[in-house]
């Protein structure tokens, strides 16, 4: 899990650097090697690794507009993912989807830029697994802001009525763009909402991968064993702005510094070293390995050709 977190962070750091190329002195989203909005997930890595550690390629995951950490933890091909984000022909979908629409059928991964809309498909996939007597599960990741969407409530109810093997994971980073959770959500904790739909709800605090791993393990094992859906809300932190370019003027002064002080990656590194589960030398090797995988993916993405204009017309229909 630590290595995957390191890889995810390294990936996002390289993506951020590339994103800024060509976007100065005047920041214009259309310019540079990566156009469009860019939502980084640094700080939220524990949610992805803690949950996905219990999943294999056959399990179905839907992610949000902030998908990189989840994609990496789910085993999405790193080279093809990087190429997609650079809009290249060798990308997951040949440059058609981009950063918010990553699809890798090989590992059953999908995402969408429309808030909460991955939840219904997760319920559907899970129900299909149950119908076909397969021991597969589905996991829908959403942000805490998405818990106020109609799709959230409808999907919870449907999953419970159908006893679908699905786990809803809320990454609670406290903010929906500029709107704080307390200003948008009538209850302090969304796991309490699970009770309204007759399913177990659980809240994990501290952005701690071990605690997330434990809670997710229980929920996923229950789903696999036919015990139905559950919901987990994870306290986490968004270390970057909502998207790159967001100056975050709405954040209370000092909040960011406090978040950086609790960055989950150094925290986990310290813990692993402290408990002698990893040596400094192990760490070095592992960080190098993660970084070189990322380096290679980015280099391949940069070198890959762009799709030809006519390719825009392929795949509109199957």
């Amino acid at each position, binding site marked *: 899990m630590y290595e995957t977190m390191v890889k995810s962070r390294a990936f996002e750091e390289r993506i951020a650097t590339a994103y800024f190329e060509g976007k100065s002195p*005047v*920041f*214009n*989203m*259309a310019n540079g090697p*990566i*156009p*469009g*909005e860019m939502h980084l997930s640094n700080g939220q890595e524990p949610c992805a690794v803690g949950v996905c550690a219990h999943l294999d390629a056959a399990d179905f995951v839907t992610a949000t507009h902030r998908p990189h950490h989840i994609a990496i933890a789910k085993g999405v091909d790193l080279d093809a993912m990087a190429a*997609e984000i650079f*809009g*290249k022909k060798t*990308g997951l979908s*040949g*440059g*058609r*989807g*981009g*950063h*918010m*629409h990553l699809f890798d059928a090989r590992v059953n991964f999908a995402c*969408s*830029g*429309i*808030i*909460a*809309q991955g939840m219904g498909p997760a319920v559907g996939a899970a129900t299909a697994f149950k119908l076909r007597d397969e021991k597969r599960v589905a996991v829908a990741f959403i942000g805490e*802001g*998405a818990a*106020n*969407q*109609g*799709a959230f409530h409808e999907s919870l109810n449907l999953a419970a009525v159908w006893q679908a093997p699905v786990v809803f994971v809320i990454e609670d980073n406290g903010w*929906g*763009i*500029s*709107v704080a959770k307390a*200003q*948008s*959500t009538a209850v302090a904790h969304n796991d309490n909402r699970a009770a309204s739909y007759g399913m177990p709800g659980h809240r994990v605090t501290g952005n701690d991968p071990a605690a997330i791993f434990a809670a997710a393990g229980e929920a996923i094992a229950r789903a696999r064993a036919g015990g139905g859906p559950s919901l987990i809300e994870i306290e986490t932190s968004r270390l970057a702005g909502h998207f790159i*370019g967001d100056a975050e*003027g*709405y954040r209370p002064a000092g909040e960011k510094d406090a978040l950086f002080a609790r960055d989950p990656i150094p925290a986990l590194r310290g813990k692993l070293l402290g408990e002698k589960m990893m040596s400094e030398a192990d760490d070095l090797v592992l960080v190098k390995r993660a970084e070189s995988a990322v380096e290679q993916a980015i280099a391949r993405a940069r070198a890959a050709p*762009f*799709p*030809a*204009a006519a*390719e*825009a*017309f392929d795949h*509109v229909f199957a």
Partner: protein
Amino acid sequence: MTATATIRENRAKRNLTIAKAMAEALAQEMRRDPSVLVMGEDIAALGGVFGNTRGLLEEFGPARIRDTPISETAFIGAAVGMAAVGMRPVVELMFVDFFGVCMDAIYNMAAKNCYFSGGQANVPMVLMTSVGGGYGDAGQHSQCLYGTFAHLPGMKVVVPSNAYDAKGLMLGAIRDNNPVIFMFHKALQGMGWLGTVQGSINDVPEDDYVVPFGQAAIARAGKDVTIVGLGATVHLALDAAQELIAAGIEAEVVDLRSLVPLDRATVCASVTKTGRLLVVDEDYMSYGVSGEIIASVVEAGTVLKSPPRRIAFPDIPIPFSPTLERPALPSAEKIVAAVTALLRGGR
């Protein structure tokens, strides 16, 4: 001329962006009419992702400038209810691509309550939203969907191409007793990070004025061909018209300004004069604005010197990669080529 009118004539020009013009219209109307309020995602402290509610929170406070949860079905439905009891809500839903999650509140209630109630229940609300692509945000954040909303009866649809019109259309939209969808194009908003078409920034008087719906503007007069556009495509058409001068072609550019109501008369009058028609639309080609304009001209019996043409987004989801997206979008070059072909009489 009265003294004040002279002073106004002589006043210094105030060039504003569409975003600023929208914010000014909202502020002016909120001062004048206590029943006006604004709500939507990130419109308060952030001032709107596209800047059109900047400064309003400071002046009017959180009761009248409300950030909402990401609960579009609820807050757009709530706007219908507020309007039913005498408020004039202005609601923003950031991107038109997001409307799927709350379409019922829009096309079954906002748009139909007046009709189904036999005129008892007016729905005076404004729904602001951004449209348009060209900056690599892919198919869930780049659509125009003009045709989708103009197709559904009971809602007015306006699309400003410049700041002067944006202010006048906004004041008209808030005062209108019907639901009005105010679609603003990202590239014209004056937000640096989206690039800005300079032509959208123009002189905006401080006065209270309304740009009437259903009156297209002649953005540029010409005698050889009529190019019809809306929002961002007006500027592409103007650029193309400028280039065409070198070839001795004088293009007339019509800015629709509103889709519902649609000013068919101005379009037909222009085509009667020029005898040639090209429609430029950034929305999908089929079943949309371009077909509607051409049908209107043909149905009116307007005599054409060559078959009408259209440039629109092909019927594909908007792709992410710039090498896929950019060639699919309308452009001044495409307009020049189409006009040149029209003048040769070919297809």
